[in-house]
């Protein structure tokens, strides 16, 4: 039987920044059930982290309501905090603290007994490969080690629900892959529900069972990555011709966008459509000299939804979320 782990209705957050009112999150509805791994995908400043901060009781919503792990975020924030794990964007270990000490302190924060905390800390140190760093201070760890410690801190009390805010941002590709391996393993072993934000397309695509796309403070799509790509983007086919005249003539027959001698067209079932296009255009005297077929990505989905590429948006380093002065 599945239980509702997160339910949010009309969740809204408004900030005042430099005399202006900014709606960071606009009436977001969410439903996440027990055991799901859901990715919140969107560019920097889309409102992902603000939503997460409301769900984790760090920020009070301006409007709307939400129940997280069975507790109302407004009426029982302490209940929410007891039941969830949270890994924020920053490194959560105190810089002068030793790794093992910080895990022990985290256990006592959650009311765990001394023996239970020590056993659990040892378990996490082993499973997250922190053994050689356990007696080192947090400030001496590498970026990947710090992030693994963050995950361990978020999991010490075996939460029912784990929130991860941009878990792999700033890590090199090897550390990212390593971190994800750990998260997937831990989830397989414990069945913990995971709700994460990311602006990495591959991360959401490969790991999440469900992707919620957020833009300008609103959820604009919510489905599996496969279904989103299938329904919104379609396969990308590029056809190259001898000259621009042939390309224009081809585009007038099959549609698509022209760029010099190349026509790009979107079609469902692209692997079957491609030979058909080549055959039909050849019959019309338009010879295709080169062709490619590419499966859609979540970036294509975002492009179809917003007219913008998430890759370009993601390049903006600064989060557009203003200094939080709640109204």
């Amino acid at each position, binding site marked *: 039987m599945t239980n509702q782990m997160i339910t949010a209705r009309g969740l809204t957050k408004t900030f005042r920044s430099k005399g202006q009112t900014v709606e960071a999150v606009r009436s977001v509805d969410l439903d996440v059930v*027990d055991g799901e791994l859901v990715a919140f995908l969107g560019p920097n400043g889309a409102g992902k982290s603000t939503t997460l*901060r409301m769900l*984790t*009781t*760090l*920020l009070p919503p301006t409007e709307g309501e939400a129940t997280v792990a069975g507790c109302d975020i407004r009426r029982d924030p*302490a209940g929410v*905090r*007891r*039941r*969830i794990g*949270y890994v*924020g*964007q*920053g*490194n*959560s*270990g*105190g*810089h*002068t*603290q*030793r790794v093992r*000490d*910080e895990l022990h*302190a*985290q256990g*006592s*924060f*959650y*009311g*765990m*007994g001394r023996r*239970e905390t020590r056993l659990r800390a040892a378990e996490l140190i082993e499973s997250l490969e922190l053994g050689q760093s356990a007696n080192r201070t947090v400030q001496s760890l590498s970026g990947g080690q710090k992030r693994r410690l*963050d995950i361990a*801190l978020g999991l010490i*009390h*075996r*939460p*029912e629900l784990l929130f991860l805010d941009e878990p792999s941002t700033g890590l090199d590709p090897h550390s990212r892959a390593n971190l994800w391996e750990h998260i997937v393993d831990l989830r397989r072993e*414990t*069945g*913990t529900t995971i709700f994460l934000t990311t602006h990495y397309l591959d991360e959401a695509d490969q790991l999440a069972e469900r992707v919620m796309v957020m833009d300008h403070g609103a959820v604009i799509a919510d489905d599996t990555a496969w279904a989103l790509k299938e329904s919104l983007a379609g396969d990308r086919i590029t056809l190259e011709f001898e000259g621009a005249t042939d390309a224009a003539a081809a585009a007038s027959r099959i549609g698509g966008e022209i760029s010099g001698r190349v026509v790009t067209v979107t079609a469902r079932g692209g692997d079957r459509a491609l030979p058909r296009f080549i055959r039909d255009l050849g019959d019309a005297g338009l010879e295709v000299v080169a062709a490619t077929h590419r499966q859609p990505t979540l970036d294509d989905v975002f492009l179809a939804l917003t007219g913008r590429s998430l890759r370009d948006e993601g390049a903006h380093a600064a989060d557009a979320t203003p*200094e*939080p002065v709640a109204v």
Partner: protein
Amino acid sequence: MSTTTSLETSARPTGFARDTATVFMRESRPLVRDPFSVIFSLVQPLVFLGLFGPLLVGAAGGDVAGTLPWFVPGILVMVALFGTASTGANLLFEMQTGSHERTLVAPLSRSALLVGRALKEVVPLTIQGTIVVLVAVPFGFSVDTLGLIAGLAVLAVFGIGFGALSYSLALACRNRDWMFWMVHQTLLFPLMILSGMLLPLEDGPDWMRVAAAVNPLSYLVGAERALLAGDVGDPAVLGGILAAVATCAIGVFVGVRSMRRAS
């Protein structure tokens, strides 16, 4: 589900006292692991003691043994003032890295997050104060043991309050380090000079004496001089206790309020 079961047994409801103890333990742990950090932060007061002290002796025209009972208590207050005033910088750093955010999401009382941190100030302050006195003893400084214990206790009360104010400043500055250090530097030196900690204010202009009269540190310095000399009945002791308690009450009140509003 097994995770739910373990959660019910592990995540017991916590209370203010337990949370405060937990936060205190976490904050104190780096001091235990690396006690030299406490010693290193003694450099400034010891420099004052070693370099400023002889000048003061020369200026006053007295001898070292006669000047130390006046000067050492001032250095003790300096240790309390500088140590606790800078402690907010640790919180500032933790706010910027994400460590503070983690504690806000944990089921800890917000008040305990502040009080536990502020109480930690007592540990380095007591150790440092004792070392300063011990360093001065071979130079002819004689101290009343009970008076020293009482003096350190009064300083501890003040330190908790001043540390809490430093944390409040950090919470207000958020990611603006420059603002924290600007306020810190702007307030600290006038407070120090206008307390008569290093130089007597009796010969200063009237406005300085008026400023000293509203500076709680002046009363603290007076009380420490009386207590370390073993003069527990001196009215200055009561003044110092009141100044320390007032600083503590205001500091903890402001600090708890700031922490409760933190996000």
